[in-house]
Structures are given as C-alpha cells and as structure tokens.
C-alpha cells in the first residue's frame, strides 16, 4: 500500500493514535498530529475514551485522510519552528503557504471537493480555510453553468424569477455570455 511510505512507524517514545478510513485502512499517527483534527480531539476529550481505541472516520476516504495527515504533520512541524523570532515566524509562514499552494495545485476538482468534505468533517480550521479559498479561486471568472456543474447544482429558479434576473445578466455581463 503506497500509503505506508507516508505513514512511517511512529517515533519511539511518542504516543500514537489509530485512525480508520471509510475503507477500513488504518493510519497510525503521532498524537500531536491527530489532535489537529478537532473531530478526533473531541472523540477522546468528550468521552474519556482510551487512546488505544481506533477512531472510525466513516466519512473520509483513505486517499483524503492520507493527504490530511500529511498536511497536518507538516503544519505541526512548521508551528514548532516558529517562536518569538520575527524572521523564523515569517519563514514558517512562507513555508506553510507554499505547502498549501502545492497541495491545491496538484488536486483535480474532484480531489479538492473530497478534501474539503474531509476537512469539514474532521473539523480542521486552517485546512478548510485555504481549501475554500482554492475553490473560490477555481470558480472565479467562470460561467454560471460552470459553477453549477462544479457544485452539482440544478437551476431551480422559476420562470418569473429567471425573468427578474435578466437585467442583472445584461448589466453585469455586457457582451459576455453568462451561461
């Protein structure tokens, strides 16, 4: 399984947590990384559950989970690097932005959607933030029809409502075909 390369055995002495993706695959991650996923954090916090319990993440595919873990691992590392030093902070921030850009650049539209749903389900605020920004970027300067296809939406305006929006189309898209 290719994921083994991205999921090495945990360091000696560090506590780990086991996460199970929707297809049954188990990911063993360092505790600090696992706690980046707020959903996982509350799983342990709220119920007083033993850290040995495998956390079932039924709505997350192993593909998405692997990427999430990869991102969170790097994010935790970068956060450890930054401290009081202005310069170090700046460098860490730049590296994080580079990491985010790289992650979204390689993703297809379906991949981004999968990641957003995963980040939302797992409640990872920072990741959700840059993913939403990326989606916003992908629908900029696109037609209304493109946005509908991307988000799997039907045009549910009534004929009267549609009529009332025509002047918006004419005014905002002078010369451009909005659909």
């Amino acid at each position, binding site marked *: 399984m290719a994921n083994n390369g991205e999921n090495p055995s945990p360091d000696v002495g560090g506590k780990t947590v086991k996460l199970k993706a929707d*297809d049954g695959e188990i990911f063993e991650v360092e505790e600090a990384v696992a706690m980046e996923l707020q959903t996982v954090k509350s799983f342990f916090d709220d119920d007083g559950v033993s850290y040995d319990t495998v956390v079932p993440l039924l709505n997350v595919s192993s593909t998405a989970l692997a990427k999430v873990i990869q991102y969170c691992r790097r994010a935790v590392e970068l956060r450890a690097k930054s401290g009081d030093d202005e310069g170090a902070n700046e460098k860490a921030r730049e590296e994080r932005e580079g990491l985010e850009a790289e992650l979204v650049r390689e993703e297809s539209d*379906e991949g981004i959607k999968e990641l957003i749903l995963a980040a939302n389900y797992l409640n990872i605020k920072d990741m959700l933030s840059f993913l939403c920004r990326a989606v916003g970027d992908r629908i900029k300067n696109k037609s209304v029809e493109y946005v509908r296809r991307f988000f*799997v939406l039907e045009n549910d305006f009534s004929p009267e409502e549609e009529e009332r929006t025509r002047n918006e*189309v004419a*005014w*905002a898209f002078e010369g451009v075909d909005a659909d």
Partner: protein
Amino acid sequence: MDISRRRHTHQYHGKSHVAAECGTTLFSTCSSSASATASLVQQRRRWANMPPELLHDIIQRVEASQTTWPTRRDVVACALVCRSWRKITKEIVKTPEQCRSLTFPISLKQPGPRDAPIQCFIRRERATSTFHLYLGLSPALFGGTSKLLLAARKIRRATSTDFVISLVADDFSRASNTYVGKLRSNFLGTKFTVYDSQPRQDTSIQPNCKSHRRIYPKQLSPRVSVCNYSVATISYELNVFRTRGPRRMQCTIHSIPISAIQEGGTAPTPMEFTNFHESTPSTSDHPLILKNKAPRWHEQLQCWCLNFKGRVTVASVKNFLLVAAAEPYQYVSVTEQDKVILQFGKIGKDIFTMDYRYPLSAFQAFAICLSSFDTKPACE
C-alpha cells in the same frame, strides 16, 4: 459530525482495483470497484448537499476578493447559480453605503457612501445624443475597460425633451427590463423631472405620481405595467445679474426625506427591482433639497471659482457642486450641510466627472447631471 454513528458498509469481494482521483494511490485490496463507485456516489451526494456554512464561506471569499469591476461580476454570477446561492449571496453583499462597491443593478438605486463619494465619469456621444456613465476616475486610467453603469439617450419631443435611462447602452425601450427611469425637461429647459421606474420602498414617503402613466408594452403580458414615479425636480434660474456668472440650481428630491441627513437618519434603500405598482400610505415629510454651492469671485483671476478638489479641470457653465439646503429648524448639522453630495464637471471634450455620495444614488445623480446638458441659453 457524530463519528460514533455506525454506517453500514458492505464488503464486496471483487477483483479489480480502481485508481483514486488523484492517480497516485490505489485502493487497498479489500476494496472493490463496486464499493469505490458507491463511495464516489456518496461523495457526490455529500458535495451536492454541502453544509450551508461551508457554502457561505466559499461565496464570502469570492465576494471579499472580487471587489472591483470587471471581476465583481463573479459575485453577480454567484447570485445566478440557483436559489440557495442567490439567497446567500444577497445576504453577504452589502449596499454601496456600507461597502462602497456597486454589485447588482439595484446598487445604482441605493444611496452612496457617507464618508466619501463614489467617483464616476460621463462620456457624451454627440452623434447619437447618448450619454454613458462609467465607474472610475476618468477614461484614461482604465484604457477603455471601465464598468458601464448607466446609459441615457436624449429624445426631443414637441414640447419637452426626454432622457431615457437604461442599464445597457444598446436598448432604450421603456418596455425593456433594462429601463430604469428618465429625465424630462420642460420646453424652456428650466425645469426637469426625474422619473424612476422603481416604486418606492419606504412606506413613510408619499409617492408623488403626478405623471403616473401606465404603459402596456406589447412584449410583456397585459397584466404587467410599467409605471414612472416622479422622484425629483430640478430647476434652473437665470443668474440675477444676467452676467456670465453661474446659474442657480435647485433639486427637490421627493423620494428622500430631510431626515436622511439628520442625526441617525437613513435614506430609502430598495433591495430588488420590482415592476408592479405598490400603493403606499402618505405622510408629510419634508423632502431633501439640494442647491448648488455659490462660487466665490476671485478678484485676481477675475473669475468665479468653485473647489472641485481636482476633479474638474475645464471651466464650464455646466459644472456644479450640490449641497443640502436646510432651514435651522430642521436640525441638520453643519458637517452635513458642508458635504458636497453631488459634483459634476468637465475634464475634456465630451468627458465629465460625476462624484456622488449619500443620500443620493447613482441613478439620481446621473439624472440630475443630465439636466445640465439640456439647459437652454435662457439659463446661461
């Protein structure tokens, strides 16, 4: 997000592997094409039913980053996708008064910002008697890509002149959904009336439908009527000394009460275009009156001077600065009375700047400026 909820997963025993979306990993051997397809369908469904707060976040980001035209149209696009998107987008987008951005056509009928004016320019096309209002400081800075806000065509009639105002430059039919109003002048070109095709929203304002004419255009169904509502009157008076000094100008804005510029006041802000007549109860309330600021005589330069703050560079009798005129008993602060609510002036051949602010809207400002193009020699 209750992860302790168990979902039924069926374990199929298939033989084929399915490549994941990103193409870098394969599903493990215990998955099959059937469950992979099932999870794709699941994901599609989850995506289509994405939580509203997520959708809100995405649309909000688009709105926050696309603040100027032409990219502002991405926000309009969001409002055209479907009902839920329209609702969210309309909730997110603020009025020009709040955020200085013009987003939807209705923004043109909403008051401008209070702190500083929105700057526009007007280009006159003599050959076709049309006038185009653009957003922006001046044509030169944008190289022809300025956002067209409104267009007007001058139509001379037997006893009056009409300026028909439209959202687009190629359609001046009053039956069209791009028709937004008009300016009508009297024969002498001394008195003008601004008509809005939009009925007033604020129920405390009495509709002054003196020239309330129902038009039943052939293109629309008989039950839809197009009304015109008188929203302002403009009058020009000859300079008392009959010299080449500036003429006196007064605008009575029936649709905006004086309370709009009093402490804590607001101006009517329509949120959607409607094209049906709504009857509203009448109350008496003093309308806002604007007068042009009197220029000072500059002894050394031997001319009348107005401070346009650099936005007007060519002397012309058409140039004006409008400020609110209030009686002492109307309790309008000095700060408010000093504010230039509308400024109009020439910067080149057939190019004029128009700066407007609260409580006027772009539509009202444009209509008032158009009157300046039609005044006859009797007033000059």
